[in-house]
């Protein structure tokens, strides 16, 4: 299911980016959350977005999925401009956003949450559900339980599962390990590796730098709504500025 539509990097010459953000500026009222942010994600990559609290990581994802509209700049997905589309149109293109804090439908069952993930898609869901239940077996056991009654880790799996119901080409993951016990962090990291192996492109926001850089190919460090450092994950892991960004520098 996941390889559906995912582009592979072109072997000769420059790979065509799947997603590009170019000089994106976003305001919340008078607060400028992003100031001319530029980044790109290549097909099949896992890209980490790092940075301290309030750096603009979530806002970047929200701009891509259409929850906030940039005041200026361009966001292109497979060459198509996203900045004027609404979230429904963007999710139809195959961009799924698993938001910060999970944002499940608490009074609905696991199954209903997953079905709603496929809201814009017609057709049978059995195969998608099977794949998600194989990825997170605990969700299969709990499928008739209300989402609000799940443990934190289970809720995170469900949030990821709901996003996967889109059959995303690009998955936006916002702090999937936030507040989870170490065993659950391992579980979520394993799932991201599986998705990556299936060819899903992932833009990953993580506060847990170690986890993020172990999963990612490349990363960007944000500070005050702009990119201050970018590079391969291995290089970033050794970079002093990365640590500084996390100390609120």
């Amino acid at each position, binding site marked *: 299911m996941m390889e559906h539509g995912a582009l592979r990097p072109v072997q000769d010459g420059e790979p065509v980016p799947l997603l590009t953000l170019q000089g994106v500026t976003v305001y919340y009222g008078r607060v400028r959350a992003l100031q001319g942010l530029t980044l790109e994600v290549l097909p099949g990559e896992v890209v980490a977005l790092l940075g301290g609290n309030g750096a603009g990581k979530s806002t970047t994802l929200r701009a891509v999925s259409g929850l906030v509209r940039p005041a200026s700049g361009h966001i292109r997905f497979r060459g198509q401009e996203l900045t004027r589309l609404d*979230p429904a149109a963007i*999710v139809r293109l195959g961009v799924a956003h698993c938001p910060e804090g999970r944002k499940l*439908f*608490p*009074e*609905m069952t696991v199954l*209903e949450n997953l079905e*709603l993930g496929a*809201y814009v898609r017609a057709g049978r869901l059995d195969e998608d559900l099977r794949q998600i239940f194989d990825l997170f077996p605990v969700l299969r056991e709990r499928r008739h339980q209300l989402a609000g009654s799940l443990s934190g880790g289970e809720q995170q799996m469900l949030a990821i599962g709901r996003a996967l119901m889109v059959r995303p080409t690009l998955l936006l993951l916002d702090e999937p390990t936030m507040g989870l016990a170490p065993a659950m962090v391992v579980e979520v990291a394993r799932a991201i590796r599986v998705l990556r192996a299936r060819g899903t492109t992932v833009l990953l926001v993580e506060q847990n730098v170690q986890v993020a850089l172990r999963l990612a190919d490349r990363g960007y460090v944000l500070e005050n709504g702009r990119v201050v450092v970018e590079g391969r994950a291995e290089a970033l892991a050794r970079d002093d500025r990365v640590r500084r960004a996390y100390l609120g520098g």
Partner: protein
Amino acid sequence: MDLTTILQFTVNGLFISAAYALVALGLTLIFGVLHIADFAQGALYMLGAYVSFYATQALGVSYFVSVPMAMGLTGALATLNGALVYRPLQRHGGALTFVAALGILLILQNVALWLFGGDFRLIASPFGEGRITVGEVVLTHHQAFVLVVTALLLGGVWMGLRYTKPGKALRALAQQPEAARLVGIDSARLGLAAFALAGALAGAAGALMSAMRAFDPHIGAVVILKSFAIVIFGGMGSVPGAIVGALVVGMAETLTAAYLAAEFADLVGFALMIVILFARPQGLLGRVWA
């Protein structure tokens, strides 16, 4: 209190509860999905009664046809309110939509006064004076009809919310609006669907009740204040809360009228609302979303 009296109160109380339940269900849906306290629904109740009254009286339409006619018209009016008044105002915060709702209620009330006059009216029930008597408990045919139709409407809405795709989308929107947008739910369109549904329910309530109880253009204001108290009592945005609240208030009103004084009956709903606000601010069946 003997069994006959208890049963008779139950019947009378249920009948009052039916009207409240229909209006309160619409209010709680609109509140849950859009966070608007749509007091204009009271005017739609009143207009539903007038549509049925004139359709049967002046146009000779069957009462059974006049009820869906009323629902269609009030549903359409509610949708127009939603699209033309509330949606443009909602961007500027909740207080404005509340003032607008009161404005629409008053405007429609005065238009009705101007068009229909201030006389009390009563829709002629097709059931006439027919009644079912079980022992000494009396249930008029019209009451029975209202109870059955109300049960069907409430059951239909409940099933729709539970099992249909738009119903699930409405619940999703009420529970977690941001995630609802992320999965591609069109909140503007579903919001209008909530208005249409609520308006139709209010119109149905007006047409159903007003063959038993005389009405004038001011009926809407009375009904909406009580229904709103019921929604607060049951829990703003809670569907079971609206229905349970309507039952509790309908019964309590009947008992108060019988054992205290009829003048106090209208206060019961508000008293219950105030008590619950102290004891359980989210309402009887309301939730505090994390």
